[in-house]
């Protein structure tokens, strides 16, 4: 292996990353309102795809209802903002904590389920959360939704969402390059062998699940503030879960940069090319899912990584 050129590439990449971050930091000064909203949504998708990657990309437990944490965070934050007058930043953090509490309650029993059973249980969790939120009208406004007081804070939310995306990616980097991350991967590779080698798989799965739930909880809170209005069908759509999954998968699950790459690629494509055609867009989205699953299940980085023997963190 050519270590010299590798580290040079690494330096170049690192320099590019720093420049990119600086550009993103000063971007709001030059951008239009649309540009800022576009970027802040992109940041949210990066964070969401990273969060799904942490539980499912590493442990192989497919969370098919990850949007439940997003919706829970959105409602927790929205209630705190609308009825208790909280500032959106602490409210969003509380959204993350609410999601972690939900993950703790549901993860403890459900992470014992294997394979498709876990996936479907998570799908069901999302349905239940939507039903419950619609049902407790006094707290959540039921099917009518919840309106937040008007606030023009796009730029602040831009930075908050950016921070969430960076934090999620840094967390992914730290986890994937650590023995903790390797142990999560042994659960994906062979759970029984991992257990026989002394890995407390139940505890590791739960830790990963809790970390993974916190991120969409916070992002949900930011989303609620950004939109100014939420309703059960807007924050618990199965499609959002699927979008996170496809982003992580497309970029390369189990890697640090895969979810970033997937989120940027897919979101830009969606927004710029065909967001105007509602149904056609979704038909194409379905086709993209089929395409990714059949032809590139390892994702872009997965392929590159295998061919050139790169590490998961690049």
């Amino acid at each position: 292996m050519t270590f010299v050129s590798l580290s040079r590439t690494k330096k170049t990449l690192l320099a590019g990353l720093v420049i990119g971050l600086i550009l993103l930091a000063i971007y709001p000064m030059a951008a239009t309102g649309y540009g800022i909203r576009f970027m802040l949504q992109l940041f949210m998708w990066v964070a969401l795809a990273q969060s799904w990657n942490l539980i499912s990309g590493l442990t192989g437990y497919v969370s098919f209802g990850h949007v439940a944490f997003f919706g829970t965070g959105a409602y927790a934050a929205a209630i705190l903002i609308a009825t208790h007058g909280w500032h959106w930043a602490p409210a969003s953090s509380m959204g993350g904590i609410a999601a972690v509490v939900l993950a703790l309650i549901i993860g403890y029993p459900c992470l014992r389920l294997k394979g498709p059973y876990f996936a479907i249980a998570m799908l069901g969790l999302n349905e239940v959360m939507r039903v419950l939120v619609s049902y407790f009208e006094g707290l959540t406004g039921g099917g009518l939704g919840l309106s937040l007081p008007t606030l023009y804070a796009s730029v602040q939310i831009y930075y908050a969402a950016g921070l969430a995306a960076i934090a999620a990616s840094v967390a992914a980097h730290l986890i994937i390059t650590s023995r903790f991350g390797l142990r999560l991967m042994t659960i994906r590779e062979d759970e029984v062998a991992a257990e026989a080698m002394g890995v407390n798989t139940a505890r590791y799965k739960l830790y990963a699940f809790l970390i993974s739930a916190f991120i969409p909880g916070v992002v949900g809170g930011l989303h609620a503030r950004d939109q100014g209005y939420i309703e059960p069908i807007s924050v618990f759509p199965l499609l959002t879960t699927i979008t996170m999954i496809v982003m992580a998968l497309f970029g390369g699950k189990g890697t640090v940069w895969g979810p970033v790459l997937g989120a940027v690629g897919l979101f830009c494509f969606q927004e710029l090319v065909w967001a105007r055609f509602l149904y056609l867009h979704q038909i194409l989205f379905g086709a993209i899912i089929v395409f990714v699953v059949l032809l590139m299940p390892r994702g872009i980085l997965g392929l590159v990584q295998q061919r050139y023997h790169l590490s998961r963190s690049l």
Partner: protein
Amino acid sequence: MQNGHLLELRQVTKRFGGVTAVNRCSLELAPGRIYGLIGPNGSGKTTLFNCITGLEPHDDGEIRYKGERIDGLRAHEVARRGIGRTFQIIRVFPELTALENLLVVTWGPFDEAHRRAQELLRFVTLDRLQNEYAGNLSYGQQKLLEFARILMTDPELILLDEPAAGVNRTLLNELLEAIRNLRAQGKTVFIVEHDMKVIMDLSERIFVLNYGEKIAEGPPGLIQSDERVIEAYFGR
């Protein structure tokens, strides 16, 4: 450690529905020796290993390790107390590199773990392949890697489930050498093996299972001429 036994099984029984896979099995292992476990197919050897390592909790009886009950512990807890094992089929972590396969089972300081992992990879002659995905290694290399992984956890008792299966002569000799080496280091080894020559050469004491029951126990020479054993294997 009471009465000097490292591992002690008392009347261990495991049932699957109507089938009794292990039936009131008792045995003792003293530290620093090599033991063999033989028996016809389906006699409960692997199930017994699974009971000891906590993968399939047994229904009745007691299992003691260093005098303490370990039954009821979960598999990872048993492993952390110093019982390592391999499986009948190779179970390396295919999408982790060879080096990562070893690092992942260590809990101490990272630098020390890393040094030891490289040392062990050199020991099993896989050092040049340390960054290769385990899934890309050949069968024999995976077998060696699995062996190194066991050593990485530094167990006192090592359960080997058919270490010689599917292994060529050269590799087999290396494995046997390594197992004898373990004994020299004071480890206890418990082996399930179908290759009679291997198990007779290696073991100091052999247990024989048939239909889940221990039907004989003794040094290899005696076992080879034991009538019940011959009957169990070849019928009357």
